[in-house]
């Protein structure tokens, strides 16, 4: 007599049964590639939603005098923009790509605590959906619906917990699952950036969670005297939506850019420690979050950079140091990456005296433009706190956030294109993807730079403004968000066409990669590698190709 019921397989005979089985397999999978792709898919949808919010805001701003929304609606609209750019765009996109790619780069068979990471993904998704619901019902920052404000706080708490789980999983993966021979100095750039990002999430998100606990208890059960109820959310937790905290969420985007430098310019990246230091310097932005400060102002008090006596010097030094630490140090980190690109891009000749030509891929184009946009956003964010420039409270701050969030999105799209052969076995063609990259960078510049100008022209950060001359800048911003919408739609369409199309599978190493994920098949199998390779340098695939070339020549 048997006591084992094997009936579940019977349902697989029908199409519906097979579909359900596939859905359940995806939703409960512990394969990091599936978790990462679910994360990325949901993030792209939330990115589209965020762009729609930005479009609505931009349409409203075309005429600064006419108000199409009441005060509650536009307050929630502006809140939705911040939530969307941070929790709907930058954070989940980078987390998803890191989860999908990092174990393959390390030669690991799986992600450390894969179920924890999957739980984190669902916590983010649930929290984001709930926060959108709360915002739609006047429950965000300064919201008038008390129940929905409570829901908004709880939803953000859920997302914070989810990202703690993701951060711990990523950092543990890099520290504990590397292939034999892969020392920390040999860790691929993208994986190292994921380590800094993961540690940053573990440092920052609990601080946010603590602030949310205070706000929730005070708003829900307290007398709202300590934190000011709904208005207090911006004061006590608003730092998560502002610079320089958001730089932390862009670190994996910088990692994609650094990762693609070597294969693009067909050479090893020298001074790996310097690049690692660059990521870590950007990671200093995490410390800004732990101070829970909204701004790090540099008040020169109209002194035109004059530094007076000892007391004046001490005061100004006290103002400058936090600003320099949290704004300039991350800029220095990103600048290091830029200088590394300039160094690596310098033309060189091979042993035969032929100049080595770069191999530009669609992934690199996206990553390069994304990196550039993030850097411009960082520079703008560093200017905003200088009080004499009078940029605080203008649209300048919003522009720098859009630069960073959209730039991060572009770079992550570059990463998706680059690792598409490993994730779903197809290659995205350069001729189809490159125009999207150009469209994307045009969109980001138009969606942001005009507001840098409008910030200097004193356009306030809300929806209304008095000076009609500012309308042109807002029209340009509207066009920018429109282009970004087209870019994301085009990208989703391109990805869908390759996933569901009948193109041939990509070859194992279509981009002449340097790191070990290119040693496995395209797409990578469930455990990533049939045999875990041994690593003897930071660019094992490049070593292998050099050895094969030498062997063929001799």
């Amino acid at each position: 007599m048997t006591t084992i019921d094997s009936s579940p397989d019977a349902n697989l005979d029908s199409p519906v049964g097979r579909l359900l089985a596939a859905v359940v397999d995806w939703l409960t999978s512990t394969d990091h590639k599936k978790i990462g792709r679910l994360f990325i898919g949901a993030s792209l949808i939330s990115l589209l939603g965020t762009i729609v919010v930005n479009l609505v805001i931009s349409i409203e701003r075309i005429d600064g005098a006419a108000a199409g929304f009441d005060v509650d609606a536009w307050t929630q609209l502006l809140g939705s923009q911040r939530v969307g750019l941070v929790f709907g765009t930058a954070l989940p996109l980078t987390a998803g790509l890191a989860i999908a790619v990092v174990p393959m780069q390390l030669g690991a068979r799986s992600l450390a605590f894969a179920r924890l990471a999957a739980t984190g993904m669902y916590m983010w998704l649930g929290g984001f959906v709930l926060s959108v619901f709360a915002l739609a019902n006047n429950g965000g920052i300064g919201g008038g619906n008390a129940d929905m404000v409570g829901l908004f706080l709880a939803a953000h708490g859920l997302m914070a917990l989810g990202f703690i789980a993701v951060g711990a999983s990523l950092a543990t993966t890099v520290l504990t699952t590397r292939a034999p021979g892969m020392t920390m100095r040999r860790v691929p750039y993208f994986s190292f950036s994921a380590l800094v990002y993961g540690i940053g999430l573990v440092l920052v998100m609990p601080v946010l969670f603590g602030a949310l606990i205070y706000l929730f208890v005070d708003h829900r059960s307290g007398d709202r005297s300590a934190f000011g109820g709904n208005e207090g959310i911006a004061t006590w937790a608003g730092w998560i939506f502002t610079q320089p905290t958001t730089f932390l969420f862009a670190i994996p985007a910088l990692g994609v850019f650094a990762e693609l430098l070597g294969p693009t310019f067909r050479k090893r990246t020298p001074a790996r420690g310097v690049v690692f230091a660059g990521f870590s310097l950007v990671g200093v932005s995490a410390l800004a979050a732990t101070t829970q400060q909204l701004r790090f102002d540099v008040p020169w008090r109209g002194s035109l950079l004059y530094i007076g006596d000892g007391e004046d010097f001490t005061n100004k030094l006290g103002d400058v140091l936090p600003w320099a630490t949290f704004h300039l140090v991350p800029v220095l980190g990103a600048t290091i990456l830029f200088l590394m690109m300039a160094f690596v891009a310098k033309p060189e000749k091979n042993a035969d005296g032929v100049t080595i030509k770069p191999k530009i891929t669609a992934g690199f184009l996206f990553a390069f433009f994304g990196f550039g946009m993030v850097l411009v956003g960082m520079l703008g964010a560093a200017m905003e706190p200088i009080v004499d420039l009078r940029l605080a409270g203008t649209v300048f701050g919003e522009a720098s956030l859009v630069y960073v969030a959209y730039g991060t999105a572009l770079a992550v799209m570059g990463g998706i294109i680059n690792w598409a052969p490993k994730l779903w076995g197809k290659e995205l063609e350069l001729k189809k993807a490159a125009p999207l990259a150009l469209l994307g960078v045009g969109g980001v510049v138009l969606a942001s730079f005009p507001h840098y100008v409008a910030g200097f022209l004193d356009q306030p950060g809300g929806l209304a403004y008095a000076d009609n001359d500012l309308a042109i800048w807002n029209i340009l911003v509207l066009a920018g968000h429109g282009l970004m919408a087209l870019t994301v739609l085009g990208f989703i369409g391109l990805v869908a066409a390759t996933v569901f199309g009948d193109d041939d599978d990509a070859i194992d190493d279509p981009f002449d990669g340097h790191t070990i994920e290119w040693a496995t098949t395209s797409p990578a199998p469930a455990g990533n590698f049939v045999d875990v390779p041994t690593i003897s340098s930071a660019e094992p695939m490049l070593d292998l190709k050099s050895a094969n070339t030498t062997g063929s020549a001799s």
Partner: protein
Amino acid sequence: MDALTAGPAPAPRNQVIVGTTFASIAMVMLTGGMLAVWAVQRRSVLDSGESWLPSSVTIPEVPTNVMLIAFPALCSFAQWAVWAAKRDDRANTVFALGSTAFVALLIVNAQAFVYTQMDVGVADGAYGSMFYAITGAFLALMVAGLLFTTVTAFRYLGGRTGDRELLTAHAIFWYAMLAVFTAIWFLVYVTK
């Protein structure tokens, strides 16, 4: 083309310990962030000339001090479990884990006693809501620790006596909780 040389399957490298360390860092950041806000709010109220602690509230020092004293004992028990497991001493390991859970329960009970003795409501001004927020978060962490101890004990009792990594991770968690409570004790119960 030649392929990369296959290496031996990577040995587990203290994954649970590293993961628990990150969880412990997160706990310390959570408490540190909350205590920083506590200190800022307290300073703000004191600067305005008002009293931070409501005049009707008296902090019962005995149970709070007992909680502080209990934590080093709790950590000792957790470390005892590690020590015993290394010597394959099943009886001592299980007894140490049981003692850890027992002391953790005592601490939860002491916190509940503090609530009844203080007689402060969550809506009693800034102090009330912040006090319950921070001590409530601490209690949630204690419950998480109790669950960790229970899971560790059941895995050990279930026959995974070679899983010493989990026992070490379990001890790390409670060391972090010692740091967390010491900070809460000093700022909330001593500095008042």
